[in-house]
């Protein structure tokens, strides 16, 4: 992935770790430092810090309303925290608009599918290539020079992703006609088309049946394995989270109550309380 090399140099002092199944996890890609996010009087995220390392699958879990999606929106630049800072590739990230954040190599999928329903699968995924197109309006309109060349390059990249996610048979199908599980896969394809360094998945498994979940799990692992994409995911299905992720952040009422490997988190008392339910003062 582009940009990954130089960032590794920036965090050269931090060497990362090796997972149980032998994957090498790199240095810190992004660090969230004391993030606090308020909406008026409501505090959605309260002084949270954690890091995301290159190449890992990082999960954020927590009960409903814990602030998981808000956290993801902070990472993707959709929300701007009132306090704290986001360190990305070794530098403090200034206030950016979401499209600017996307250009820095962060792509995402949405909890509620946000595809262009009337467009074909192929066209939807092509929109993910937007940041790789440099041709100006005139060139695009005239189909001249760069526009033509870029279209071919981008189509090739998109076709590789279509092949990877095994959706060849629906390439020309309008998204509106697809079942839910496939729409989710198309969303993942569009996010991948941007060739992100960090991929954010907001409940990629919600509302799927067992078979679709298994497929999705396999694709997430394959993406991580094949492209080395760092993945941050929010998920409710505990089985999925524990199987997929290298490290887990647990949130409850906007606070971080746990952080570590799936096993550590599973045995964390605060986490058990949050999930089994304890009276909050």
């Amino acid at each position, binding site marked *: 992935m582009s940009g990954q090399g130089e960032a590794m140099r920036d965090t050269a002092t931090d060497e990362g770790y090796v997972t149980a*199944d*032998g*994957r090498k996890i790199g240095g810190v890609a992004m660090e969230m430092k004391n993030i606090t996010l308020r909406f008026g009087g409501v505090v959605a995220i309260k002084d949270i810090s954690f890091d995301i390392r290159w190449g890992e699958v990082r999960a954020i879990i927590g009960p409903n309303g814990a602030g998981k999606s808000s956290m993801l929106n902070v990472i993707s630049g959709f929300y701007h925290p009132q306090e704290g800072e986001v360190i990305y590739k070794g530098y403090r990230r200034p206030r950016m608009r979401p499209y600017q954040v996307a250009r820095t190599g962060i792509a995402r999928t949405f909890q509620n599918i946000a595809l262009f329903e009337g467009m074909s699968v192929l066209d939807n995924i092509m929109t993910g290539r937007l940041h790789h197109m440099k041709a100006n309006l005139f060139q695009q309109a005239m189909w001249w020079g760069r526009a033509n060349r870029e279209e071919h390059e981008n*189509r*090739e990249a998109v*076709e*590789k992703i*279509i*092949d*990877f996610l*095994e959706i*060849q*048979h629906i*390439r020309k199908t309008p998204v509106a006609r697809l079942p839910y599980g496939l729409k989710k896969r198309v969303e993942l394809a569009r996010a991948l088309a941007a060739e992100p360094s960090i991929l954010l998945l907001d409940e990629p498994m919600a509302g799927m049946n067992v078979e679709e979940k298994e497929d999705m799990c*396999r694709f997430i692992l*394959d993406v991580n*394995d*094949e492209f080395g994409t760092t993945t941050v995911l929010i998920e409710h299905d505990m089985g999925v989270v524990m199987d997929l992720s290298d490290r887990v952040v647990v949130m409850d009422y906007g606070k971080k109550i746990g952080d570590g490997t799936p096993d550590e988190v599973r045995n964390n008392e605060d986490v058990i309380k949050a999930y089994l339910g304890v009276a909050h003062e």
Partner: protein
Amino acid sequence: MTVFPDPSATLEETSIPALLARNARRYAMQTAYREKEFGIWQSWTWAETQAEVRAMALGFLALGMARGDYVAIIGRNRPALYWSMVAAQSVGAIPVPLYQDAVAEEMAYVLDHCGARFVVCGDQEQVDKVLEVQEKVSCIEEILYLDKRGMRKYDHSHMNWLQDVMREGRAAETRLAGELVKRTGELTLDHTCVMLYTSGTTGKPKGVVLSNRNIIVTSKNSSEFDNLKPGDEILAYLPMAWVGDFIFAIGQAYWTGFCVNCPESAQTMLTDLREIGPTYYFAPPRVFENMLTTVMIRMEDASPIKRRVFNHFMGFARKVGPRLLDGKDVSAGDKLKYALGNLLVYGPLKDTLGLRRIRVAYTAGEAIGPEIFDFYRSLGINLKQLYGQTEASVFITQQPDGEVRSDTVGVPSPGVEVRIAENGEVFYRSPGTFESYYKNAESTASTKDPEGWVATGDAGFFEEGTGHLRIIDRAKDVGKMADGGMFAPKYVENKLKFFPNILESVVFGNGRDRCVAFINIDLNAVGSWAERNNIAYSSYQELAGLKRVLDTIQEHVETVNESVAQDTMLAGCQIHRFLVLHKELDADDGEMTRTRKVRRRIVEEKFSDLIDALYGDKDSIYTETEVTYEDGRKGVLKATLEIRDARVFGQATAQMAAE
């Protein structure tokens, strides 16, 4: 008896690799293979194909592949997998293609039986299966795979990416080229070309050894029979382990030098078919049935005007189309109207189906419904039938142009002699007759006599006048009813299956006083009907148990009874009671072969409680059935099935009254 001159005496090329070399000289720049990958049809000329096969063969040599080694190939139809077969032949090894949807245990038996040292897998899924059985099957030394995806983390000490093998082969060119030339040069017509495992409707699969002579002579004869030529196109989408695919996509393709097209994935087959527009096409009846069902379902949803135009011209085509195709006299007016129909209906329809350019299409394996057959013929598609089996390198009989009918399987193919034994069993002898069953001298001896006559296991007869062969049923399935009448289940089952609503049926009655039947409904056809009539259902099981569905099936059964009653010989085979099964018969549960033929004995054993109930007098039966899911796990299906009585006709009714 006619003595045929030995056709192999004049052959210059005595192996598939030799044919490849000839094609690379003769048709160097013509397209040999196409595969849709990344949304584009990638193509290879014959010269490029030769280079790829050569690199692969050198790579195999570098890995230590020896003469006479067995190389298993598992995966969907892809050029590189076809090349791996030819590359294996080039170094003197024997390719053994396997069914890719076989579960691990089935695979273990075959891999162990042939003693495969090398296994070439299409993708991770197949590699996983091979690794799973590797503990039991100790002969496997090297695993090669084509699709790299997901393979990064595997232990590669005895595993290779096919591209790496080819790269190594190219690098070792100077060192190994001499050896390769020597090995390829050694191949004669008597060397084994390929070993194919028959799916076996009974017992364990048997390895059919086919020599270069079998394959090449058969390919030559059959290519000439249908006048195949370079520039023809086929779509290779049927299992590579099936003899037909080997003959069409390798034998005939290398003999004639036509182009083999591989679809992008199994799901895109119909789209790819349309994009390629093959000129030579093979499909089992089921595929043609599905296509027709799809067309009919879509026409139901079309606007009334379109529907009327369609129905009018299709009715007309049924009368005139087949006659036109057979070159019989047709009045000028009818010709003109057919041309109009072609412009409005037939042409666009053929185009949608991807069958516009078809010169020759074959169907075989099962009987095809006369209506389905006539539908395609009336569109002007030259659909013909052939009769064959693995042991014959496919061809036993086939229909010549102009003599095509739905109820015969044609005249003996060129070079093939056919005779009918006294008990009605069909025997044949041909240059394509297999060498032996691998490691099974007993079966070889009982199937093939010293003079080379092979028992087909099918009962049939030659029609007087035309000399066409008609097949009645499997010889061992033909039995007697308790009253001495003939019992031919297939005959009745086929009549049932010709209804679009019925996918599969199994008739019982051997040695009994009356016949009963299991029926599988067609989920597509019945499901679409349910949708149009606002009938809710959530599963196959629920749909199959609906009263209105059962009523419809009962009508079908009674219609069949009425037509069976016309035949004095088989009138006793009318169905007295039937039920609609709660699950589809499935190869994963062992109820069908991988080529989707019903395994009668297994079905009979597995559902013996249901058969007892059919011969009893209850109206319903509760049953539990074990099912195997795609990932190999087992589950139990519970259901209460309704048993229906069907009306019977003619003789049989009289007999009932007498009892």
